[in-house]
Structures are given as C-alpha cells and as structure tokens.
C-alpha cells in the first residue's frame, strides 16, 4: 500500500491520522507526490492534507514526546531527505502504539535513525549560527547568503532575532530561493529577484564604506591568532568543512 502526500509536514501528519482511521493490514509506504511513479502492483491512496487532522496528530505527539521530541520530528522533516518521510511516518505510528517513554528505545530502527538525522540538521543549524558572516550594506542592512544542505532557515529565526535585535538583517537561502528579513520588529519571509541571489555582495557601491575595513581587520585578526608551531590541518578541515569556506570572510 502506498500513501501519497503533498510534501508538506501537515500532509505527512494527516497521513498518520488516515492510517489510524484505516489500519491497513500491510505495510504502508509513504511517498511525496512529486516522487510518485504509479505502479500496477501496489494500491495507492492519496492523502488530502487537512490541518485539523494534522493538528490532532501534532498535539498528540507533543503530549507524548514533549518539546524536544517534536522538535526532533520537525528537524527531520527539514532535512528534505527522501527516506526521512518514511521514518517519520513509522516513528509516529510506533509512538502512538506504545506506552510513554518508547521514543527512547534506541534499539528500534526508526527511533535511532530519526535521532541521528535530527542531530545532523541541528548540527548544520549550529554551523549556520557560527559561519554566517554579515556584510553591512550601504543602506545599513546586514546581509548574508547561505546554501545549506538542509532547509535550516526556519530554525535560525529565533537565534538571530534575539541576538541582532537592533539591526536590520537578511539571511537568504540561495539554493531554495527564499530568505528571512528582520525589520527591527518582526521577521518576514522574502524572495529576492534572481540577480542579487549571492552569498556575498561584491559590488562595492552596495556596501557600507567601512565594510572593507572591518572585513580586513577580521582577516588580520584571524591570521594573527593562529600559532604556526601548532598547525594541524587535519583537525582544521574537520572543524570547518571545506564546503563552508566560501561563507567565511577570513578565508576569502
């Protein structure tokens, strides 16, 4: 049996609801619509996303798992990995069918796999908090483009809003073509036109006149704080994987 859903988290949660309504006897494979290829031998069922149903499932999960538990599910969803939808689906069913505490059964495959995927997403979120380098633009805005492996922008909002409360900033995902903009009051989702979809702004007249000074001071600082006698390249590339170097002012 195949359940087809619309790619959204709500759709996925609705699918869990539908499963409990129907309790199909055989194992259910869950497939996002854009990946579905009809197949003559397996029956399929199209899940119609329904926020009321999704909400009931979400509340039920929250009750059983608490905040850390549902955050784990949300992180896994944001990983956008194909296999993760099945893991989330199986995990939810497993949780509702067992007594409290069962989410800690790391001997169970979906439990462990969700935990590990969520950890990867949290790690990338943490890396973004570390490696984002804002450039100050001529109009006083702090800008940074990113292209993370996972869709972590929703996880970044709180951190940046709390910390950079008195400056306007934009964090833009150039891979997924959307970003967030903080206007000193609230954070809103934005879409920029394609011509300015950049990790860094290179056009000098778009930048604040002191931007270069501080970028250079930072590079100087980075080089000076290094102790040559202790050089350890292996450890270094493990801590700052090469794919993030392009973000880093000090590495440019």
């Amino acid at each position, binding site marked *: 049996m195949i359940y087809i859903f619309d790619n959204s988290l709500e759709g996925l949660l609705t699918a869990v609801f539908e499963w409990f309504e129907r309790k199909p006897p055989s194992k259910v494979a869950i497939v996002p619509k854009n990946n579905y290829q009809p197949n003559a031998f397996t029956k399929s069922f199209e899940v119609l996303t329904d926020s009321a149903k999704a909400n009931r499932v979400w509340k039920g999960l929250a009750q059983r798992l608490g905040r850390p538990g549902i955050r784990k599910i949300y992180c896994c969803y944001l990983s956008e990995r194909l296999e993760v939808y099945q893991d989330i689906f199986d995990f939810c069913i497993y949780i509702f069918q067992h007594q409290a505490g069962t989410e800690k059964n790391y001997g169970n495959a979906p439990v462990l796999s969700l935990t590990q995927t969520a950890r990867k997403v949290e790690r990338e979120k943490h890396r973004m908090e570390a490696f984002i380098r804002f450039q100050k633009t001529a109009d006083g805005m702090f800008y940074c483009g990113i292209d993370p492996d996972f869709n972590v922008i929703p996880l970044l909002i709180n951190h940046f809003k709390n910390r950079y409360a*008195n400056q306007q900033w934009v964090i833009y995902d150039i891979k997924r073509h959307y970003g967030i903009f903080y206007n000193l009051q609230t954070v809103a989702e934005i879409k920029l036109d394609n011509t300015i979809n950049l990790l860094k702004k290179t056009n000098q007249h778009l930048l604040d006149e002191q931007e270069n000074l501080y970028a250079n001071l930072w590079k100087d600082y980075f080089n000076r704080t290094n102790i*040559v006698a*202790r050089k350890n390249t292996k450890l270094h590339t493990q801590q700052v994987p090469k794919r993030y170097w392009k973000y880093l002012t000090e590495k440019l």
Partner: protein
Amino acid sequence: MAERLREKLNILADAAKYDVSCSSSGSDRKNTKGGLGNGHQSGICHTYTEDGRCVSLLKILLTNHCIFDCAYCVSRRSNDIERAAFTVDEVVELTMNFYRRNYIEGLFLSSGIFKNADFTMERLLRVVKKLRLEENYNGYIHLKTIPGASDELITAAGLYADRMSINLEMPTETGLKLLAPEKSHQDVIKPLAFVKNQIIQFKEEKKLIKSVPKFVPAGQSTQMVVGATAETDKEIMYTAANFYKNFSLKRVYYSGYIPISNDSRMPILGTQPPLLRENRLYQTDWLMRFYGFDVRELLNDGNPHLDTDIDPKLSWALRNMQNFPVDINTADYQMILRVPGIGVGSAQKIVQARKFGKLYIHQLKKIGIAYNRAKHFISCADSPYQLKDYQSHQIKDFILAESQSKYLKTPPNQLLLF
C-alpha cells in the same frame, strides 16, 4: 587612522593568543530591549585557526606594555618587541563591529600590567562599562582579573563580565618562582577566592531580591603552561583537581609551552610544543569532569606520567582488568562510562535503550560505540564466548594494531582532542 588600527590589532592579537581559552559558554545573559547580543549556553565557535583551536572571541590585550618580566611571556619588559595600546573607544568599536557581522561571540580582554594593577584594572573596567552601559551590548565578555587589583575594582568588573580568569601559569610554586621570581601562586589564589565568594554571595542575594544583578555568570577559569618547567603530569593534574575543587572553576586550560626565547631555564627556540602531552592532559581533565574519575585513579605515585601511546581511559582500564568485562545489559551507568570506546552520549543511550530489551552487538554499533575497542571490556546479549582471558598487554597490542592504520599515519603534532 585605519592603518594604525590594523597595526595595533596585529600586535595586540598576536600577544594575546597564548591564552588558549576561547570559550564563550555558560552565560545565559539575555538581550535587552533595543540592545545587541546575548549569551549562548553552550557557546559558539565562529571559526577555527589552522592549528585547530576554536575562535569564538575577539581576544586581545589592551596593551602589551608590562612592568613585569615573566620569562615565559612575550610581553615581558626585557623583550625587545613593538609595543602598542588600544584606546577604550577602539576596543569598543572593534567589538561592536565584529559582533554585528557575526564574526564573534564576544570580547576576551586582557592586558599587560602598566603602571600598577589598579590602573590597569580600571582601564579594563572602562571598556566593559562602555560596552554594557552605553552601547547596550549583551554579548559575551571574558575579562582578565589583574593580580593585585583592589576588591572594589574586581567587584565592579564582575558586574559586567560573563567570565573572569586569572592564570596560574606554572603548575607549581617552584616552577613559578624559577621563571617569574616577582610572582607567587598566592597572587592568583587571593582574587580567585574573592571572586568565588562574590559569586556565591550574589547568587544568595538574587534568591531573595530578583533585581540583584548577575555576577560573573559563566564563572572563572585558569591556565597552566605545560612543559616550560619540569613538573610531572601528576603534579599538574593534582593542582588542577585542587583548583577545580577549591575555587569551583569552570575550566582549567593546559597550554603546551611554545618556546619564545633562548632563556636557558626553558626549552630552547625551535623545540616542538608538547602537543601530545597537552592532549593527554585534556583527556584526563575530561575524565575527571564528565566520567566520574578521581584524579588519583588516573595518576599516582606508581604512575606519575600519562601514557603517550594510549589514552588515559584505556590505560586505567588495562591497569584495572579486574573490573571487566562489564555487562552492558546490567551494569550501572557509571561503570559503562568507564569502558574504553564508550562516550557519554552512547552510555546514556545504552541505559535508556536496554529498558526495552537486551542489547545486541549490532545495536551497540549503531548507537555509535567504538566496538573494536570496547569489545575487549564488555559483554552483551550475543557476545562471543571467549576461550581464554587475554592479558592487559595483549589487549593493548590488539587495540594498537587496529588503530595503527587510522591514527599513527598522521604526524605526531596532528592530533585530535578525542
């Protein structure tokens, strides 16, 4: 103007880098309305130097002028180097502009001692006050306590700093006297104890009156230079354990001595810094803080030095084979934690998971333990039956042979912390 600022930064960052602490953890300082910055409980490393150290803070000296002449320090007065001093405003501007660009978690401000202790401390205090009170800055501040500064100045500084530190420098009084005759451990102990008591007092008062401000919320730390003088690992770690206990320190840092002069009392220029030794000391420190080991189990008169070829946890296990094998499915958490190849995270997962049924080898592997190492010390649901008991040295050989390919290919100065 900009050029002079760059020169100063070069000089004063260079002089500050031997202080290895760069931690920005432990502060839960919140941003204020319309302010900039906050603390992050576990800290954030914004980048790493090529020697693999975390860069979290803008670590600089206010000045490298110094009236003292400590042999192990580049800023000592007899050293013929370029001197510079930041103004208060320069430090504030640098901090704010770096912070706004998400380069750093905050400022680590230290200083050579010019004129006298109070004069120096007062300048440091001016910087942090300006950041907190005028710039509404709530990011992390690590401030050096200047030995000999007055209690009033130290208390005032503690109201604005997240962490304060003061370095022991040499692990023993004898070592210190040899290299810095003008100094004594007592200069360090007094302010450490004072700040510790203030922390306790402010906490007590805060329980009663909510408006009492935070005082050094991320606690105190210290640093010891390793390998400049002839202390044993035992002496170093006993001092560390002692300071953790008596002054509730958050961290003790161990800094392998990097030769900076041809002073005959210390290793000569060009000597490799003792990075492996430093690494083993940090491992021992972790075992004390997170794995429930008492320092006397790891180092004692029989074993005054840590092994170089294997880590201290494995050494301890091999010396204490009577405690093994540990049954993964029944042993208590503390004992599982002591198994070589099992870390804190895996140990916690194991005790949670086994409530749901006996654990098997494949599950342990998936949970993430280093099975090839751990297998010599554990039994689980499907452990193979062992015909003979291996001796410690045989197990050591197995483990070394196995890790040979992985670790020993890297040159000895290219180490991983764990």
